[in-house]
């Protein structure tokens, strides 16, 4: 029951637009960051398909490679590459937000907390490149 003495003013409530994320760049950037997960999933699917093709033999792998070279796949994978990079960078930059690391009396700067992620990324990428290009 409504208390008759309660302060019940008439107010105006603005309903949030469905397209609120287009109103300002930071919101659009957030939606792109969240949406990048779809492309990360796509990259995982492509990797699984590559492993399956490898397992089925040289003919299946050649067919898979030919499929990858089609304009549609090249376009999708080009866009995916950009979004996977965007996803990785935004995720690595999140680390110092969630983790406060203190060394003695001082809090480690954000860049120092993010850095090990980038170093690991670089080392793993270099190792993979070496394995792939070795012949």
């Amino acid at each position, binding site marked *: 029951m409504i208390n008759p003495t309660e302060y019940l003013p008439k*107010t*105006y409530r603005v309903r949030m637009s469905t397209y609120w994320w287009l109103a300002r760049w*930071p919101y659009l950037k957030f939606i792109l960051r969240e949406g990048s997960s779809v492309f990360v999933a796509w990259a995982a699917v492509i990797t699984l398909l590559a492993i399956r093709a490898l397992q089925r033999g040289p003919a299946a792998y050649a067919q898979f490679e030919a499929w990858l070279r089609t304009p549609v796949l090249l376009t999708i994978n080009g866009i995916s590459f950009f979004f996977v990079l965007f996803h990785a960078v935004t995720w690595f930059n999140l680390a110092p937000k969630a983790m*406060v690391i*203190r060394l003695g*009396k001082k809090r480690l700067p954000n860049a120092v907390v993010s850095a090990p992620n980038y170093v690991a990324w670089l080392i793993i990428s270099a190792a993979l490149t070496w394995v792939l290009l070795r012949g």
Partner: protein
Amino acid sequence: MANRITLEVTRFNPARDEKPTLDTYEVPLRKEWVVLDALNYIKDHLDGGLSFRWSCRMGVCGSCGMMVNEVPKLTCATFLSDYAPGPVRVAPMKNFPVLRDLVVDTSDFLLKLAKSKPWIIRKVEKPLDEEYFQTPEQMDAYKQFSMCINCMLCYAACPVYGLDPLFSGPAALALAQRYNMDSRDEGASDRFDILSQHDGIWGCTFVGECTQVCPKNVDPAGAIQQYKLAATMEWLKALVLPRGAE
């Protein structure tokens, strides 16, 4: 620099209007004037009926938060000259019900703030003549979060709060974290059940705009992510040590 600038101000009279309208005013553009000065000029010289909140004029009281060109700002710290040649659009803070003109109803925030228990909780209080000692490092752990002035700009910037009014919101969660990290406090477990709910920290999708608009560099987004990590560790501890997790 032109010597006048146009302000487009949102007006809403609950006794007369069904929805807000825009009124346009021309005010002097002075180098040292902030948006709040322009609003006071309008009230003093052009339209005495314009309603807005303000008090200290120096970024301490947190009363004069409004949307300036769609961005939540403390109007006492937002210089008119940064918006020249204008026009400058001044609107009430987003995500809150509008009471009149630029005044919003903040009751929902105050309820949520109280729920997060933003005060020091002790299991046993020390006698009044004894002190709670704290080292500068212990104070440093929470000091940033304690700078919050309850201006609610973070709520106006948070799309999660706009879409889901049940979400506790940035300031209430940051202030809970401020007390959790205080070495004198023993109330983390009291706050845990309220804050680790879906409408608490897990409602946050880390848009990060709360931190960007905060005039006191409180970093509510950081506080929430740190709380998420702490809550996950608590959950893991309870899973691994179901009987000894306390």
